[in-house]
């Protein structure tokens, strides 16, 4: 899977690249508008991470060019402009997702995973991992063919873990993912623990192996 990271801040671009590379993504970088334009015209990517404020131009132009040419690359806008109007504008212009800075890398990884799956597999979309199978359309989870009934949040968590296989995920990243905008209003994220515990218990009871690990009580890791 090829990812293009269009981001002028080298520190951030590098973190994203390193994090994603460990997920078997192949990352390329563009640090300014001209470079981005060139890469987008020459090569195709499964997903493009697009910063809007670039040296030399507006990232929005690149998105519009892509859409005008009818390219199928998935696009996730990563921008410091996190307000509603900008999100709406970005999504309207054809972006698959919009992530406001600052974000957690696992959140980005989960969104990339979801965009790529949506684009590549259409509606017949299921994920299989060992004895676990998730049907993304009907939102059902089965272990060894047995249906496991999960709440919406537990399913959300499961997909988030799968999108961040073998990575340690901070509790606050999970909290932000689960409760969206209101998450960063609070410092205490203990409620995440309850959801993770329930998910583990349900999967365990259905016979799934212990792939979900707690890392010193501050983070979680899905081994697969």
């Amino acid at each position, binding site marked *: 899977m090829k990812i293009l990271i269009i981001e002028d*801040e080298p*520190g*951030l671009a590098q*973190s*994203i690249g*390193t*994090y994603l590379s*460990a997920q078997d993504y192949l990352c390329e970088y563009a640090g300014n508008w001209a470079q981005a334009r060139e890469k987008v015209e020459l090569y195709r990517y499964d997903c493009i991470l697009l910063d809007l404020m670039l040296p030399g131009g507006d990232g929005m132009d690149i998105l519009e060019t892509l859409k005008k040419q009818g390219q199928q690359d998935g696009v996730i806008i990563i921008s*410091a*402009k*996190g*307000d*509603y*109007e900008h999100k709406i504008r970005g999504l309207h212009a054809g972006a698959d997702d919009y992530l*406001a*800075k*600052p*974000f*957690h*890398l*696992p959140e980005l990884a989960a969104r990339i995973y979801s965009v790529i799956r949506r684009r590549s597999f259409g509606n017949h979309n299921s994920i299989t991992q060992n004895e676990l199978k998730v049907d993304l359309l009907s939102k059902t989870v089965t272990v060894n063919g047995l249906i496991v009934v999960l709440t919406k*949040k537990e399913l959300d968590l499961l997909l988030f873990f799968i999108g961040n296989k073998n*990575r*340690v*995920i*901070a*509790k*606050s*990243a999970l909290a932000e993912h*689960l*409760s*969206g*905008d*209101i998450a*960063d*209003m*609070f*410092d*205490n994220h*203990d*409620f995440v623990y*309850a*959801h993770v515990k329930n998910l583990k218990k349900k999967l365990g009871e259905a016979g799934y192996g212990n792939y979900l690990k707690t*890392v*010193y*009580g*501050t*983070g979680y890791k899905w081994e697969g």
Partner: protein
Amino acid sequence: MGRMKKLLDQSLRPLIVYALAVLLISIPVYFLIIDWIWENELDKHHYAIREKLEKRLTRLNLPDTAVGDMIAVLDKVQPGFSFSETAAPRPDSLYTIIRFDTFMNDREQFRCLVTDIRVNSRLYRVLIETNMEEIDETILAIAAVTVFFIMLLLAGFIYLNRKTALRIWQPFYGTLTSLRAFRLESGRTVSLPPSQVTEFADLNASLESLMDSSLASYRQQREFTENASHELQTPLAIVKSKLDMLLQSQSLDAAQLQTVEEVYQAINRVSRINKNLLLLARIEHAQFEGTEQVALGDMLVALAAQFEDRFENNSLHYSQSIEALYVQTNPMLVEILLTNLLVNAVRYTPAGGKIDVRLDVGSLTVSNTGTEALQEQNLFKRFAQASGQHAGSGLGLAITREICDRYGWQIGYRFADGVHHFSVRF
């Protein structure tokens, strides 16, 4: 500061006092002049009579006895005259006297001349007197007339002042009215009524440049906040991503992970403050313009569902009583308002406490249990947290108030029986 005075009244007052003084002084002056004219005229008249009397009597060429008889008759019959024979001449005397007059049956004032006339060789002393207006009555009459004119003058002053001065100052009041509509937040100057008068034109020009520069510095300050917040987002994103990377390191021990977790929390708090600053700047910027009919009840129910985890996490008992209420507003802003009130309640309610949300016709009340009343004067100010022990952004309620101000809603706080009540009147 004392009682406010109107400009027009101020200019009128010395005018009235001056007119009053002049007219009051004029009363004795009038009197003295009239009195002087009277007496002067009467004295001239008396001397003329005296001359005529002396000449006519002398011209008759009567013997002394006949003259004596005639004078005796005149003394008895002629009103205003009295005669007596005298041996030696004496200087004339002129005087004014007030006495009771038996004929008129009243107090009367007389002007008198006592003089001598010589007929043949005999000398007679003559008193001629003429009734004139009494001094007090004269003064009264003059005073009455003067007071009448004072009244006329004052009424005229007030009327003319109202009429002309108001017209003259009209541009000033026009400017004042326009200026009252000026709001820094609107980002627009108000147009001042043009004036042909130099002073008012100057005033308007100065005010216009004052408004322009205020707006410019206000805009600059707003943009500064917005730009500063934007600029902070990127380094924050880097720090956050580096932490996420650090977490992947295999060699971290429990203590180091704990440190990472604490840095996460600090970074989250910075993001939160930054986000709220940005939001506040944007609300002040008069963004979020569009409005629509928003069903507050539905929005509240949906929001409360998002908070379920939080209620559970803090063992809070949540209850709600919601009636249908529709408000014409910007949905984003009202959602922020509701969220902030709920966040506030969750954050400051002690574990095991209660949160109650009540939405009825025209008002929303969010109540939560607490220990003591908060300082109301600081409650809605930026970074002025009313209690020191929690780590909010210090902006939540300031944003809430800003939103309420924008739509003219009233936000209030009260504390009763261990419960904080925040209410918004739509």
